[in-house]
């Protein structure tokens, strides 16, 4: 028996040792205690945001800690409640910002700098979230197979002359849902359903892959046009690591739909301060930094997006696509139709 006891003791000690190992590891992790920090929950990949976060730290001495995740951030924030370590959230797509806002996980910020730098259209009326860059949802059209003017609006994509000529990623992807939501906002649910059904009928293949894969499919002859965000064009045209992508980019023209109507659908990447931020002042400093010329240019250029601040120079490649008329509807309005858009995609069995 004693031998068994010794063994059990040994196991117990082992467990405790493991436990204390875990605890020491925990204490190694930076929390809000350190001198000057801001803790960030980010929907954007670390390598995209690291360069200008480093500059921020250099300038202000405030260290930025990051958790990067796309799913479950909202639930984590909610569960952590008032003890959450997160001070600020960095996201893409308006729907995520408004989901956080609706769950009352964000707090309104009053900042002269932010109000001056960011046009009203791209921030919440009460300062609950702020857009930092914009991207347009455009049509990529094959240079020769698509005649000029054949696709001038989103509505053209649902017309019979496009039968079997369209490629797109899943109808359930955030970008397509926001586009559909903007159509609901502009024309109502019925018209939006007809549009989705029309586009579905014109698809060359079942929705799959990402925006870039659709341009590739155009180059290969699978289809003639596709839906995609603007920045993919930049990413493909300058891809030194996979030069083949330059040929994909070279096969298509950038078409901004709706120039004669409400304009091209635009979405944002944005930021917000959490309801229970412990380092609120630092979080505001970070947001302000991101809205100023230096970060605006760097943030936008890095991913070929458009800076929200007026007067900030565009990347030459982005500028080469020309100025365009953007849909001016407030993004908050669009995010309200998001769930409806998802259901419409189900009803027309867009991905089926």
């Amino acid at each position, binding site marked *: *028996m004693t031998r*068994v006891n010794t*063994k*059990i003791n040994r196991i117990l000690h082992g*467990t405790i040792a*493991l436990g204390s*190992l*875990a*605890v020491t*590891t*925990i204490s190694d*992790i*930076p*929390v*809000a205690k350190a001198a000057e920090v801001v*803790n960030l929950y980010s929907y954007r*990949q*670390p*390598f*995209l945001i690291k360069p200008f976060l480093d500059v921020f730290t250099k300038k202000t001495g405030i260290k930025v800690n*990051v*958790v*990067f*995740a*796309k*799913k*479950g951030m909202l*639930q*984590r924030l909610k*569960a*952590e409640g*008032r*003890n959450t*370590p997160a001070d600020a959230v960095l996201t893409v797509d308006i729907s995520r910002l408004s*989901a956080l806002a*609706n769950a009352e996980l964000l707090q309104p910020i009053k900042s002269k700098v932010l109000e001056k730098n960011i046009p009203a259209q791209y921030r919440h009326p009460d300062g609950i979230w702020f857009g930092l860059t914009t991207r347009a949802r455009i049509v990529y059209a094959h240079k020769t197979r698509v005649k000029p003017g054949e696709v001038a609006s989103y509505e053209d994509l649902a017309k019979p002359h496009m039968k079997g000529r369209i490629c797109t990623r899943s109808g*359930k992807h*955030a970008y397509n*849902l926001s586009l559909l939501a903007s159509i609901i906002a502009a024309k109502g649910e019925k018209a939006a359903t007809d549009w989705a059904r029309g586009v579905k009928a014109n698809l060359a293949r*079942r*929705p*799959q*892959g*990402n925006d*870039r894969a659709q341009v*590739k*499919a155009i180059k*290969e*002859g*699978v289809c003639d046009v596709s839906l995609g965000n603007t920045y993919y064009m930049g990413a493909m045209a300058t891809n030194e*690591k996979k030069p083949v992508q330059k040929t994909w980019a070279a096969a298509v023209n950038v078409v901004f739909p709706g120039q004669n109507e409400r304009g091209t659908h635009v979405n944002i990447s944005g930021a917000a301060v959490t309801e229970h931020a412990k380092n609120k002042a630092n979080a505001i400093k970070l947001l302000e930094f991101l809205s100023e010329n230096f970060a605006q240019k760097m943030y936008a250029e890095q991913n070929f997006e458009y800076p929200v601040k007026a007067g900030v120079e565009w990347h030459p490649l982005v500028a080469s696509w020309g100025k365009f008329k953007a849909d001016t509807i407030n993004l908050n309005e669009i995010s309200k139709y*998001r*769930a409806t858009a*998802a*259901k419409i995609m*189900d*009803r027309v*069995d867009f*991905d*089926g």
Partner: protein
Amino acid sequence: MNVSQAAATIGQSTRVGLRPLIDGWTISSILVAALVAIPIVTVIGLAFSPEENIWPHLASTVLPRYVTTTLALMVGVGIGTLFIGVGTAWIVTTCSFPGRKIFEWALLLPLAIPAYVIAFLYTDILEFAGPIQGALRELFGWVTPKDYWFPEIRSLGGAIIMMTLVLYPYVYMLARAAFLEQSLGVLEVSRTLGRGPWHAFFDVALPLARPAIVIGVSLVMMETLNDFGTVDFFAVGTLTLGVFDVWMNMNNVGGAAQIAVLMLVFVLLLIGAERFARRKQRFHHTTTRHKNLPRREVRGWFKFGAFLSCMLPLLMGFLFPVALLINGALGHFEDALGSGFLATAGNSLMLSGLAAVCALAVGVLLAYGLRLRGGNFLNAITRFASLGYAIPGAVLAIGVIIPMAWLDNSIDAIVRQEFGVSTGLILSGTIFALVFGYVVRFLALSVGAIEQSLGRITHNIDGAARTLGASPSKILMKVHLPIIRGSMLTAAILVFVDGMKELPMTVIMRPFNFETLATQVHQFAAAEQFGQAAPPALAIVATGILPVILLSLAITHSRKHLGGEGAE
């Protein structure tokens, strides 16, 4: 009445008469199982408070497609892994042919490759722009995809093949261990009774190995069910995609939990049906006279067939994908190795290692608790706690985050009230929370491996040891653990290798500035920087290889061990 029978009778009577109604071991088993079950209960709890009733919409639109696709995927992968896993296990155990010794361990290697990685690699090769279709076009003068037909990799069939290729090792491993533990005796009997080798396989070996094979196939099916990466990439509309659609796009986490619970019901029905089908069968080794199965020297076409049957899964599930990965990683090692690669790999190793140790301890506790007393309650709660494996990782993560944050916040509230200071979050967002999450997610692996191994040891041994005055803990330490140590290693390694590949829980629950190899792969792959994604993916595979080889040696060794001791 011989000794072992007598011991069994005594064991029986002690079980009924002398033991207290409830003992420490049972209590700890129930407590631990309950702890692990909390996240699953939380997910079910979420299902009771949906933001809106999603079913009328789903039922009238995409639900039928989700359900049929999910079933087809599960059945397809189940059958595929059953054939490859059992077939190769039988061949390497009973046939003698060139390369057999290498195949014994090499057939396990695909286990180290994440399904989403192999899916991506094959797509690159097999899609329109890939080298294969390119060569065909060149050869036949085709130009556009409309000129010819080629199987579409991004499809249900493609998903079945991809998952089968990396999941069959679960079945192979458990089937092989079961075949190895079978004594020649039973097969000899069947042969002397006039049955041919095929009958020996179908009528004797297969039924004896059935519990192990079933555990393997059900693990495969659960993993198929929880997969998001592959079905998302292939745009195959399964229930799991539906879970995320309802959760993220319709902002209805409760509705998403309802679909996840529906999937659990699927799994329960499946397991229940199998258990019902074999309700009265129990197989134990009754003799200590173990004699290894003889290997048949196969000749001619059979030799070639045996070789090919083992070579194909290995080639397609491991060698080829790894070659592609290495090719993709060329030129990117410098960027990858520079940016804290060692720290990242260290994080992966630490998390997976801790999870393996903890899951093993919990697995032994529960499996032995079941053996000691069984009991419907402990049995039910253990099965329930093992269901984490069938829930999509991101959903399960929410099930872990909510109760853990609740605990943290409650402690904080009490301390604030009593002492006026805030403790903040003690457990949430720490390594501890992640390890707990891993254990919840992978418990089925360790319990399954240990239970099926314990189950093959006859209860007569326990009875005999009890009559000699040993306590249950002593029997476990002195008798059972030495016999099942091969299976324990199996359990630990399975959890370790799956931990290295784990993505969704890690992403959501991790601490600040914390990366693992899997999150690195994900980060770069999500941004379509596949070159940068290749080195960490390769590192996951490389780290998985060594344990996998150890695993195979352990399985082989367990047989020698069993045979050796019997002979002494």
